[in-house]
C-alpha cells in the first residue's frame, strides 16, 4: 500500500541516487536499469519511455501472441498494455521485476479482451489428447528401436547460428496449442519461473508442467525432423 507523495518517484531499491539524472542533461537511457528508466519516465522523460518500450516490446509481443494468435490483434494488446503501464507506473512498487509487472498487465488486458469477445481463455491441458514421442519408435517393451541421433550442434549458440533451425523453432512454437504456446513462451523464451507462469495464465502447477512437457516435446521433435540426416556443422 505504498503512496506516491507529490512528484517523488518510487524509491529504487537497487539504484544509487546518483543514477537518477537531473532534468537538464539526461544521459542516454540505453543500458540503464529498469528502475532508473521508471523514475525518468515518471519525470516525463521521452527518451527513457522509448528505451523502456524498445526493451520490452519483443517479450510483450511474444506473450500477447500466446493469448491471441493474430499478429495485428496481439499488437493492439501490447499497445493497450503500454497505456496500462503508464497509468499504473506510479504505483509500481518494484516487489517484482518490471518485466513481470508488465506481463501481469498484459495478461489482464488479454483476458479482458477474451471476455469481451466471449471466448474462454484456453490454457488448460485438459481435453488435449495424449501426445509424446511417436510410439512406433519404441519396441513392445518400450525401449528405443528408432533412437534419437546426434544433432551436430550440441550448444544453443551453435544451433542458433543456423537460421533454418531458428525458423523451425519459431514455426514449431507458433503451431502449438494456445496453452502449450503460452507456457513455453513464459518458461523457456522469457525465463519466467513456474509459480509466476501459473499466476499469469491462471492454471495449476500440474497443468503448467504438462503443457510445458508437451510443448518442449513437440519443438524437439520438429528440430529432430529438420536436423535428421543433416551433416554436423
Amino acid at each position, binding site marked *: 500500500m505504498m503512496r506516491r507523495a507529490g512528484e517523488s518517484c518510487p524509491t529504487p531499491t537497487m539504484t544509487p541516487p546518483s543514477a537518477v539524472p537531473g532534468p537538464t542533461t539526461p544521459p542516454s537511457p540505453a543500458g540503464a536499469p529498469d528502475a532508473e528508466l521508471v523514475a525518468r519516465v515518471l519525470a*516525463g522523460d521521452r527518451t527513457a*519511455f522509448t528505451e523502456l518500450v524498445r526493451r520490452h516490446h*519483443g517479450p510483450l509481443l511474444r506473450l500477447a501472441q500466446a493469448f491471441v494468435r493474430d499478429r495485428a490483434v496481439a499488437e493492439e494488446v501490447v499497445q493497450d498494455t503500454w497505456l496500462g503501464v503508464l497509468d499504473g507506473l506510479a504505483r509500481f512498487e518494484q516487489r517484482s521485476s518490471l518485466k513481470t509487472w508488465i506481463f501481469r498487465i498484459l495478461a489482464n488486458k488479454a483476458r479482458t479482451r477474451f471476455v469481451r469477445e466471449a471466448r474462454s481463455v484456453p490454457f488448460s491441458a485438459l481435453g488435449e489428447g495424449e501426445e509424446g514421442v511417436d510410439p512406433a519408435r*519404441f519396441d513392445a517393451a*518400450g*525401449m528405443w528401436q528408432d*533412437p534419437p541421433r546426434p544433432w551436430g550442434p550440441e550448444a544453443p549458440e551453435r544451433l542458433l547460428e543456423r537460421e533454418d533451425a531458428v525458423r523451425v523453432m519459431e514455426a514449431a512454437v507458433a503451431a502449438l496449442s494456445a496453452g502449450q504456446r503460452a507456457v513455453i513462451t513464459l518458461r523457456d523464451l522469457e525465463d519466467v519461473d513456474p509459480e509466476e507462469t501459473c499466476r499469469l495464465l491462471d492454471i495449476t502447477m500440474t497443468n503448467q508442467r504438462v503443457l510445458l512437457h508437451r510443448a518442449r516435446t513437440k519443438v524437439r521433435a520438429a528440430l529432430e525432423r529438420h536436423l535428421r540426416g543433416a551433416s554436423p556443422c
Partner: protein
Amino acid sequence: MLSCKQITELVTEYAEGELRLLDRLRFQLHLGLCRHCRAYVRQMKLTARALGRLPESELPPDLEQELLRRFESWKGTRG
C-alpha cells in the same frame, strides 16, 4: 527399471525437480545405462535453452510513434 518411453514421458518432471526420490533414482539409473535416452534428455535441454535465445521482434517505427504520441498525452493529463 523404467522403459525408454517412460523416460521421454518423465523428462520434464525430472528437469523440474518434481520426481519423488525413488523415481528420480530410477530415472538416473536408466540414464546411466542408456545412451539413447541420454541423447534424448540432452536434446530436450538444448531445445529449452535455445528457445531462450531466439531473436526478438523489433518495435515497428509506426507503433513507436503511436506510443510516443500516447506518452505525450499521458504527460499532459498529469499536469
